């Protein structure tokens, strides 16, 4: 079973490498959204840095969410999802493999790019550090929860927006703790509480989400 797990993981990474544009696009989307706000709001550094945590986290959240549609869609349409379902392997494992690959392809780059953009928003260094940490702890939860939405909306026309509708409300705690962490360190408070809550949330979803996703997949392939 272990090998199947690795196979799925490797295959998805390979696919992503074949289509580097995908990796790039998540990143650029994050970048563009984040840089749209100064255009809409105006350049005052004070205002910007005060809204920076919220804006950056929302941008990261949207970028992650947009890439969700791709998590299972192609497997579904070309029939390799059927093959996954009838494989003699525990499905949740395979799901974890796919989610991990998805996070490495779509989540990690955003985490790494975030500080650059944080600079544009005139964030102090320690705040930048906290930003990266919070994203590192939070984005896995986003991918894991998102997987449920992606699985539920398989084969539904216009699933992109439907996913948003299903998933964004569930993302709110992550958003609150994540942005909260950055804001706290901005105001010179300790961000530990926020970060540990984030970590807890990610762990919880790591335990529960794969099973929900597996169930959802079986439902929508039927």
């Amino acid at each position, binding site marked *: 079973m272990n090998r*199947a797990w*690795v196979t*799925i993981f490797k*295959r998805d990474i390979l696919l992503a490498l074949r289509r580097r544009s995908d990796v790039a696009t998540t990143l650029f989307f994050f970048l563009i959204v984040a840089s749209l706000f100064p255009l809409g709001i105006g350049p005052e550094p004070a205002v910007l840095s005060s809204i920076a945590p919220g804006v950056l986290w929302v941008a990261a959240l949207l970028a992650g969410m947009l890439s969700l549609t791709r998590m299972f869609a192609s497997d579904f349409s070309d*029939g390799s999802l059927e093959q*996954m379902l*009838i494989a*003699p392997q525990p499905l949740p494992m395979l799901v974890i493999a796919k989610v991990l690959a998805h996070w490495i392809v779509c989540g990690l780059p955003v985490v790494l790019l975030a500080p650059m953009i944080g600079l544009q928003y005139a964030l102090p260094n320690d705040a930048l550090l906290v930003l990266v940490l919070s994203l590192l702890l939070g984005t896995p939860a986003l991918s894991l929860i998102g997987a449920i939405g992606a699985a539920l909306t398989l084969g539904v026309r216009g699933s992109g927006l439907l996913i948003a509708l299903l998933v964004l409300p569930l993302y709110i705690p992550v958003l609150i703790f994540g942005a909260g962490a950055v804001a706290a360190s901005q105001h010179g408070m300790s961000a530990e509480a926020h970060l540990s809550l984030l970590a807890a949330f990610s762990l919880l979803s790591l335990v529960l989400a794969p099973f929900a996703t597996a169930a959802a997949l079986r439902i929508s392939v039927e």
Partner: protein
Amino acid sequence: MCIRGDRLLFRHIRFTLKPGGLLYVLGDNGSGKSSLLRLLCGLMQPESGSICWQGEQVKHVLEVFQANLLYIGHLNGLKEDLSPIENLQASMRLAGDHADKPDVLDALEAIGVGRCANLPVRVLSQGQKRRVALARLWLTERKLWILDEPFATLDSTSIDVLVARINHHLNNDGMAIITTHQDVAISAQSTQVLRLDI
């Protein structure tokens, strides 16, 4: 292996398949062939009735059953961006058996798409894609093959190759369940025909 009635499209279907046995599922378009095959694979649950594998209900021995099953639906299950070789290797490992490059190449050669072994599947023609998917038949020893319209869009030569392969499988006590609209001659120790009417 046996099935009892499912109401949705068909009811009171019942058959048993013995080693070396071949089951043709025939019927007009929309008679429910594909649906039946999906039921058998456990991709759908029957509204009522049960599917058994070696006396056990499939849903109780799912892993065992699936370890003996090879299903190829009308979707090919190929990644457009990967080459046939990569595709096959991935799907083999996923199915739990190992396949190294030479074997895969031989399989592709066997069904006559060796030329395309390293192109991205995207650029292959319909029939070539189908043949790549079918190459899995040369790579596994699964007791039960379930093939949904394997011959559609194949040219005559590859149909012959495929038929030969299926015969070989059956003669080694394999079992096969096949839907098709073309009439092809497969020699099996025991051939059953299941007709679904609308």
